[in-house]
């Protein structure tokens, strides 16, 4: 082959605008809060922050995958309430914790599968299908719990639930209580799930297939990837992760409320969006969604430390979302502008 016509395409390895938005949103918020809010940057508060954020991180991972395929799952919050109430009721009836948990996880997963079935096989638009399922799940939660908080009697058979919220270890870094660094089982569950999700996404073909389905179903089909299977899978994963999140909530408050999942789907969508998802699909990243969820809880945590009423939380989350998006556009513009003014080199020969 004659080497004279070889085209050399150089790649810039690192691009800020290729990072998920949540990276710098989280970075900026973290620095501001650490500097301005006393006690924010204390070991116990940070440990606590991760514990608080864990359920949202877990459902955001599922939400991010669903959005990457170009769909959406509005039923996550309802699913959390429903599976929580069902698990709590089973515990109340004296079922051993392990069976109650397995039941809850199975119900959550099936609920997700049903979402996928309605969207993909019945061809109902994802927004409408999961909106309907959200209502159904919330109602089931109310019916099962009779709109009351469900408690259970502590007994040897359900110690497992208590175990979830215990701390694996604590390290006292100083003599004040705020200087305790602790690692809860909740955090460990969250980390394990995140690691598995990232591993599966990066090291198997699943991630690439999710992107291809979201970018263009036709492309996926031409490459013998089944959009039906992929979408059913991500909805099932989203449902399963909702049940896990529900378990974490339940163990923390030692009860289940029929409203405990309300609004969580909104927060998970926000986390996924500032994590780099596009609602059109084919974009996004799991680490981005995780950082997105952490950003939201950093805001909540900081506001409560600063003594701002909980009613204001949504205002700030909305501001973070919108300012984050504007910031993202600015970063893109800045890089794009520099790119277009960079000189194009002209070479005819092979370069390596």
């Amino acid at each position, binding site marked *: 082959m004659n080497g004279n016509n*070889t085209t050399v395409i*150089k790649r810039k390895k690192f*691009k800020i605008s290729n990072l998920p938005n949540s990276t710098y949103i989280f970075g900026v918020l973290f620095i501001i809060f650490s500097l301005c809010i006393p006690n924010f940057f204390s070991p116990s508060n940070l440990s606590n922050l991760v514990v608080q954020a864990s359920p949202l991180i877990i459902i955001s991972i599922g939400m991010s995958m669903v959005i990457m395929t170009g769909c959406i799952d509005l039923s996550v919050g309802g699913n959390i309430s429903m599976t929580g109430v069902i698990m709590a009721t089973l515990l109340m009836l004296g079922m051993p914790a392990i069976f109650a948990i397995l039941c809850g996880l199975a119900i959550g997963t099936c609920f997700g599968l049903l979402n996928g079935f309605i969207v993909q096989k019945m061809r109902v638009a994802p927004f409408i299908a999961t909106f309907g399922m959200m209502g159904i799940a919330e109602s089931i939660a109310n019916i099962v719990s009779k709109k009351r908080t469900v408690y259970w009697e502590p007994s040897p058979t359900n110690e497992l639930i208590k175990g979830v919220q215990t701390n694996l270890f604590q390290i006292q870094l100083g003599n004040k209580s705020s200087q305790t660094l602790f690692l809860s089982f909740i955090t460990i569950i969250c980390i394990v799930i995140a690691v598995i999700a990232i591993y599966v996404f990066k090291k198997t073909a699943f991630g690439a297939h999710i992107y291809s389905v979201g970018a263009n179903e036709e492309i996926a089909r031409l490459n013998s990837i089944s959009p039906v299977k992929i979408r059913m899978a991500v909805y099932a994963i989203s449902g399963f992760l909702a049940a896990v999140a529900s378990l974490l909530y339940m163990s923390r408050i030692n009860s289940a409320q029929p409203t405990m999942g309300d609004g969580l789907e909104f927060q998970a969508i926000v986390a996924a969006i500032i994590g780099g998802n596009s609602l059109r699909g084919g974009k996004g990243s799991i680490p981005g969604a995780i950082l997105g969820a952490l950003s939201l809880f950093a805001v909540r945590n900081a506001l409560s430390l600063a003594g701002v009423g909980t009613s204001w939380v949504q205002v700030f989350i909305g501001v973070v979302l919108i300012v984050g998006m504007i910031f993202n556009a600015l970063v893109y513009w800045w890089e794009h502008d520099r790119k277009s003014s960079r000189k194009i080199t002209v070479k005819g020969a092979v370069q*390596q």
Partner: protein
Amino acid sequence: MSKLLEIKGVCKSFPGVKALEDIDIDLDYGEVHVILGENGAGKSTLMKILSGAYQADTGEMFVEEQKVLHNSPKVSESLGIRMIYQELNLVEELSVAQNIFLGKEQYKGIALNKKQMNENARQMMANMNILVDPNTLIKDLGVGTQQMVEICKALSTNAKILVFDEPTSSLTDSEIAELFRIIRMLKEKGVGMFYISHRLEELKEIGDRVTIMRDGKKILTTAADQISMNEIIEGIAGRKIENLFPHTRKEPGDCLLEVNGLTGEKFRNVSIKVCAGEIVGMSGLVGAGRTEVARALMGIDRCNGGEAFLVGKPLPKNNIQKVVDMGLCLLPENRKTEGLALSLSIRENTIISSINRLFPGLITQKKKESQVVSQYVTDLNIATSSIEKLVQYLSGGTQQKVVVAKWLMSQSKVFIFDEPTRGIDVGAKSEIYRLMDELTKQGAGILMISSDLPEILGMSDRIYVMAQGDLVGELDAGEATQQEILRMAFKQHSPAVEEVG
């Protein structure tokens, strides 16, 4: 010598339409077989039967003298038949290697063997003389390189037969040259290729044989060097197109559009003028800044300096509404996304920019709308059963006419056509040319941006040539030649190393 592929007596009907009638076609090893025909002539149907997406009603297919019994996408893939589609089928957010191996990833244990796939992808691209980091995301590559990735993907599975469906419609000239180089390389390796294109001049450059199809029938198959352009056009259109370019040159009237030293981000110091009754061609390579000039004139993009006058009055900057009201309009290259609302009817699309003028009050009257629109539909000879038909169901040529109707109704004086006939078949092309001629007869001025040199030479009164953002020349159409335009367009242009940032 035995044939690589033979298709005999293929028929295919859809409800109400006979899409293919008794088609025989064959392909040799290392041959480029060009298939020409208008939209709807049956080319795509034939290729879909080849790839197994459709089943033929009757007829036989042989690959390397083996009869193919039940063709399906899976079977055709196993036979080494690959399609390179017009719209690129790559996932933008994935890397070059991930795209090449999409759906057939290589595993090492339970994890992907990324190292191996990256190395293979790098090697495959290097075989086509493109050195690219296989981790580069597709969205960071130019369209031309993306197409190479697509070809690479097809070749990664030992393709014997490649089908190119209008591969050059979105490529620049240097990218087309690169594509042709690779096609020649594949020929040497014995790969047989079908090549579907609307650009007739490509046929002579790359084709060995040519088959012309019309209305689901094969008109002829012949060696590419034994057929003249006129014969081809006649064959495609099924009628003698005496004069594809009907524009009659005459004395230009008053100056309608005058632009002095317009400067924007991608072009500098552009001064042009367009007179009544005149078609002014604007030629140059893709990326020379022609479309950007048009967008700046319309007030869509910002411009940094210069001024423009329409019938003596200065054009406002960054105010599309006012520019349109003054009588300048743009018929964008991308009709489907920028020129029309596809899910609305012909009536709604046509009336959209005149609605305030027709109904100064708050209330609109559908009856009056219909009357006015029907008038234009008749005048422009728009082929439709009803003005309530949705625009998405119209052919490319008819859609273009609806855009013209819209601007005619809003009383435009100067029409800027951006690539007016891209992706439109020969029959519809000639109608659009006639329409342009009609517009000039009625005293309108036309600025026509086009990369199609025969079109520029055939239709224009004067020709401006742009290169890399500069206006490099003005030619009288009577004296201009393709060579001269190309020489100007390439003036400051040399093949560049594509840099990805």
